[in-house]
């Protein structure tokens, strides 16, 4: 799937980073999504992060001006994602609703 505005980003000299995370089920992907989206990116400018979920895959797309800013945001997201996945492993699977 093409990233919307990809061509524009390249023209503007933006860095891009893409991550797809597979989950065992749609429900678990949705839980991770809802756990990870409420907190906004601490930095105001120079980076944007878009999180989406489709079936059992969580996808994240970053666009940034500098590698330094990108690395901090991706690193921090990875820490958060790892914690959410560890929590699911230790206290899952989700109860039926």
């Amino acid at each position, binding site marked *: 799937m093409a990233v919307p505005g990809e061509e524009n980003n390249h023209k503007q000299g933006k860095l891009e980073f893409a991550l797809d995370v597979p989950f065992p089920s749609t429900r678990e992907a949705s839980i991770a999504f809802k756990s990870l989206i409420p907190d906004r990116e601490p930095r105001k400018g120079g980076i944007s992060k878009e999180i989406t979920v489709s079936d059992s895959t969580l996808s994240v797309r970053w666009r940034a001006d500098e590698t330094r800013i990108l690395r901090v945001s991706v690193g921090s997201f990875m820490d958060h994602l790892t914690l959410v996945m560890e929590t699911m492993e230790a206290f899952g*699977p989700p109860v039926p609703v």
Partner: protein
Amino acid sequence: MTVVIGFEGSANKIGVGIIRDGEVLSNPRRTYITPPGQGFLPSDTARHHRGVILTVLKEALEEAGIKPDDIDCVAYTKGPGMGAPLVTVALVARTVAQLWAKPLLGVNHCIGHIEMGRLITQANNPTVLYVSGGNTQVIAYSERRYRIFGETIDIAVGNCLDRFARVIKISNDPSPGYNIEQMAKRGKQYVELPYTVKGMDVSFSGILSYIEVTFTSKMLTSDQCTAEDLCFSLQETLFSMLVEITERAMAHCGSQEVLIVGGVGCNIRLQEMMGVMCKERGAKLFATDERFCIDNGAMIAQAGWEMFRSGQVTELSDSWITQRYRTDEVEVTWRD
């Protein structure tokens, strides 16, 4: 019966507590302790919390003998506090709330301290002195808000103590404040420090600078006073200021009860000094020990219990954390 699990991790303590109708079923906690001379930084603290939070959660459930299914609500600290540690705790709270299909509830950390203090001491409508590493406030309840009558205009009293400990390299284990309290008992002379009460408010940053500049350079090196004398003098000065503004708030509200909460609140010398003032006024002092004064999960569970019972919940989309969150922003829906 209503069972609430509470997650706290806004500073260097990480705790998970479970409350069932006023009964503390479990309340395990871990503290991130830094070497002498060093404070705790947000990212290092968050890493510490990530490393232990799931173990602490397991302990809380096991000690309480509670299954996730028995829980009615998952409460967590929404703020105020350090961003990265707050996010860590919120992530786990959001995830388990969804895994267990339970409602989520974001709690104001300061309200957690107040409600835990009220539960443990059974103080009914006290004037509250909330003193910790990040907060210094004199609070009284009126018309559905915990209103702030006086507060620090710069750093918290606990921050002043912590940073003083760093300057003279006192150990952070179990906490800098505890070690200052022990050293102060061996102080022999009172050295005069600035006394900075501004109306109902207090200021501590100047006292810290004064010590940094004057004493560590001159007096300690020339044996005019000892580190123990400084600990003693600092405690006497800071705590006198706190007692003064608490007394003024009591006079203003006509209150006959004082409740001390927050990490600095387990300092016995502060409790003694407050006790003297209360005795003179015929008022009653309520305080708790380090299990409930220092940040813990049960306090978030208790405030969460009150909020949940009064009909509050937090939608996942509104569950963002916030580093700034004043005590008086919360509408107290659980008191008359």
